Every structure is written in C-alpha cells, then in structure tokens.
C-alpha cells in the first residue's frame, strides 16, 4: 500500500481536564476525499487545529507524506502543502477578493525584501506573474468579476468560496474544509459538492472535509471517519458507516436533544 498523504496515530488533545480528542487514528489516501463527521463538540475542529499546528498535540503523532509534522510551526505546515478553511469564516475582511488570494500566493513569488523596497527587475516580473496566476484562479473559481470587491461585502456563499480559493492559492496537496456548506441552502450545497469534486481533479489534491450535511458527505466522500466525544466511533466506506447502528444512535441522540 502506498504512503497516505495524512495519517493520524493515536492523536490526543487535552484542554485542562477535558479530553477533546482521544486516541484517534485514521488515514487520508493520496488523491482521496475523506469525511470527518460527528455531533457538535465531538472534536472535529480540534483535529484540524492539531493537523495545522494551531494547537500542540498532547499525545500521538501526525504524519504528512510519512513524516511527522506534529511539532512544526503552523506556517511551515502550510508551506508544506496543508491548508484549510475555517468553520467561522476568517477572510482578510477589509481586503479585496483579489488581495485576499494574492496574499495567500506569496510563496509563488521569490523576490526578497531588498528587491521589493527598490523595485528591482525580479520584483516586477514576479508580481506580474503572481497577478496573472491569481486572476486565472479567480476565473476558475468564478470570482473574477468580483476581484475588486472588498471581501466583507461579498454574499455569504461567495465568502465561503473565496476562502477555498484563498487556500488553493498556496498550491496545497491536502485541503482541509471545516463545514464548508454551513449556512448554505440545498442549491448552494449541491454546487459546492460539484466544486469539491472538480477541485480535487484540477488541482491534484486530497481533501478532508468536516460536514453536518449528510447528503454532501455521502455524495462526495470515499471514506468517512466518525467521532463522538473525542473518540472514534466508526471508520470506513460511506455506506458501511451510514448503516452502523452506533453511528445512527449517536446522530439520532444528538438530533433529539437539539
């Protein structure tokens, strides 16, 4: 079997007395789309925060392409090719759509500080290429006509789309999406489903998505991992997981208390 793009091994995170993630292990195959589901507070976002280095791991390990990234700084993990979106959108609110994406593509430019301060040739060349590449990405994602709009003024659905676009600007190998369909109507959700499939093919990346919309998860994921109270509840193909009585229980239980 080939090396998975991401592998969690006995991952554990404690906040004081609370164990938010408890001995979780699973893998995301190269080129695959995997789903991470579970009731509210199950520890899904915490896992994303651990993978991206925002939180320090309490125990266990995180392997990216076979090498541990558990002790790396967040920005270095991003540079390696792991990017994410946020459950509660975090755009650079006062910047335009173009600048949001341009900022994220900074690693594609190679000029140094001195070259920037004095506008040396490489600065001009790189900046021009960067802008072209960004506009191209915006067209692919259907945001080109809004390039000059301040992102805070975008409709909600487009803000989510912009966040994904910004993540793609880093040329990631692994994209983590935290509830990308939250607050969307069924129509928008369908569109998003298609988009996720397209992105995977076009940008040759692997995706790990957190979602509550069951149809989205069942529709796009090839593999699903279910969490409950920080612990693994089930892991496997969508149809197996969906019929697992433990999963049905956890979800129905959660639904009833809502």
């Amino acid at each position, binding site marked *: 079997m080939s090396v998975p793009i991401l592998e969690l091994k006995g991952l554990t995170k404690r906040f004081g007395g609370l164990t938010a993630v408890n001995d979780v292990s699973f893998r995301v195959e190269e080129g695959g789309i995997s789903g991470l589901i579970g009731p509210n507070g199950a520890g899904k976002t915490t896992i994303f925060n651990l993978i991206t280095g925002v939180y*320090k791991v309490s125990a266990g390990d995180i392997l990216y392409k076979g090498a541990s990234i558990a002790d790396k700084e967040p920005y270095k993990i991003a540079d390696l090719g792991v990017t994410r979106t946020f459950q509660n959108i975090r755009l650079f609110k006062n910047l335009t759509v173009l600048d949001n994406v341009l900022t994220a593509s900074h690693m594609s430019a190679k000029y140094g500080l001195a070259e920037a301060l004095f506008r040396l040739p490489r600065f001009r060349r790189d900046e021009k290429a960067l802008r072209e590449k960004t506009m191209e990405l915006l067209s692919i994602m259907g945001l080109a006509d809004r390039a000059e709009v301040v992102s805070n003024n975008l409709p909600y659905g487009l803000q989510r789309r912009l966040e994904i676009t910004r993540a793609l600007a880093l040329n990631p190998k692994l994209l983590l999406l935290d509830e990308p369909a939250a607050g969307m109507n069924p129509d928008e959700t369908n569109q998003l489903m298609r988009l996720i499939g397209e992105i995977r093919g076009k940008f040759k990346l692997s995706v790990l998505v957190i979602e509550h919309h069951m149809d989205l998860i069942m529709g796009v994921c090839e593999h699903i991992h279910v969490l409950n109270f920080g612990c693994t509840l089930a892991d496997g193909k969508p149809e197996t997981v969906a019929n697992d009585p433990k999963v049905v229980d956890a979800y129905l239980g959660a639904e009833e208390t809502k």
Partner: protein
Amino acid sequence: MNLFLQQLVNGLSIGSIYALMAVGYSLVYSIMNFSNFAHGSVIMLGAYFGYYAMTLLGLPFLGGAVAAALGSAGVAIILERLAYKPLRDRRAPFLYFIITAMGASMFIDNSVIATIGPTPKMYPNVFGQGPISIGHIDIGRVDLAMFIISAVALVALILFIDHTKLGKAIQATAYNMKASALMGISPSFVIILVFGIGGGLAGIAGILYGMKYQVFPQIGAITLKSFIAAVFGGLGSLPGALLGALLLGILETFVSGYLSSQYRDLIAFTLLIAMLVIRPSGIMGKNAEDKA
C-alpha cells in the same frame, strides 16, 4: 536593620497605592480582556476631585475621599459608555480599543491642562505635622494614611467580590461571559459595575497620591507602575495585582535606599520586560491556549 525595616514600611506604603490602581485596572481587564489605558487619567481626575472637594467645599478628608471615589467612578463609567461600548457593539478589533483609550487619556489630561492649568496644587495638611515614631522607625502621617485607607478599601473589595451576589456575578462573568449571560447576569451591568469599582479605587488612589506629593495634570503617569504591578501578578488576577504592587513598591524603595533613586524606575522597567519574556502570564495568571 532599622534602615531595612524603615525601607520595608515605606515600600508597603507606596506599594499599597500601586495596589489600589493595579487592582482596579486588573478588575476591568478580567472582564473585558483589554486594558483601560486611560486609567491614569481617571486617577488624575480623582486627585483633582478630592482637592476641590476639600478646598472649595471645605469637606474633611473623608468627604474628599468619597468625592474623589464617586467622581472618578462616574468618569470611568462615562468613558466606558461613550467610548468603549460603541466599539464593543460592533466588535471592533483590539487595536481600536487601545487607540480609543489613548485618545481618551489625551483628551482628559489636556482638558485639565487647558482649563485648570499645569501648576501643581498643594493639598491642605489634614494629618498634622511630623512623622509618627514606632520604636526606631518613622512613618510619615500621609504614608500611614495611605497604607490604612488602601488596606481598608482593598479588604472591602475582596469581601465584596467573595461574599456578595454582585461580586459573584463579576466572578462568573470574568470566568465566562457568554455562559453567565445565559444564566441571567447582564454583561452590560457587570461591565458598568467593574468600571465603577475600578474608577472608585482610582479616585481614592488619586487623592492619596496627590496628598503625598502634589496635584498636577501628569500625575496619572504613575499608573504605568500599576500596569507593571498587574503584569507581575498576572493580568486579570486580583490577588496577583495586589501581590505584584506590594512587591514592586518594596523593591523600588529598596533600590532607592540601597542603590540610587536614579535606578529605581529603570529597574522596574527591566524587571517588567524580563517578566514578560520569562513568564508573560505573571505570578498568578493562567496560561490558556487561545480558542481557534
């Protein structure tokens, strides 16, 4: 040995003033998670309120102290309503709060300079002349008053926070504003309350500090010391602020006494930076992982 005890007494007296300022400031921080950097201006106004209450209205010292406390509490509450609340309501970034505090401080300080003028004013001497001697140690009358009044005010505060319903509401809100709001504690009310208490303590600190030295528009600069004290103790922790303030006061008098007063502030600032580097959460603060 006598010198040592003498310094210790002086240090406790100045430390108790720092404590009055630091505790009020830290109390606001514990609720708002931001520093009221205009705290110094509120202290300065307290010194003027007390001064005018005693000279123009001819009130006795206690009357002056009450006037200073009430006046400063009022100013602090007005400041929160007019300047900070609008920012909170639209969830402005942290930067805006600091800038607003800086503007408020500049406005208050310079209003006093423009109207009352920069000339220092002397409080009437209400405590009598000459130090009080206990054994071989001399205590200035104002210093003694500073210590006693600060101690009374701080004990009253601790009793209030630990043993009254309102005090418990403050604690609950400091621990978790959202959860306590759900339990029926109005955050808005608690915020007004802490600004009022912080302002009141600032007013008392102002009148005492003004009596020890003089009253002038830049007197609020001394709050920097209370910020340092609060950081020593751990921002947002009241016992921490108290301990930090007393330690700082004692340290300062010892440095002045045994080394040179020139180094007093320099050492305070160096310690501040050292503390921030080694243990930013202070002696008693808690080190939590930010929620992302």
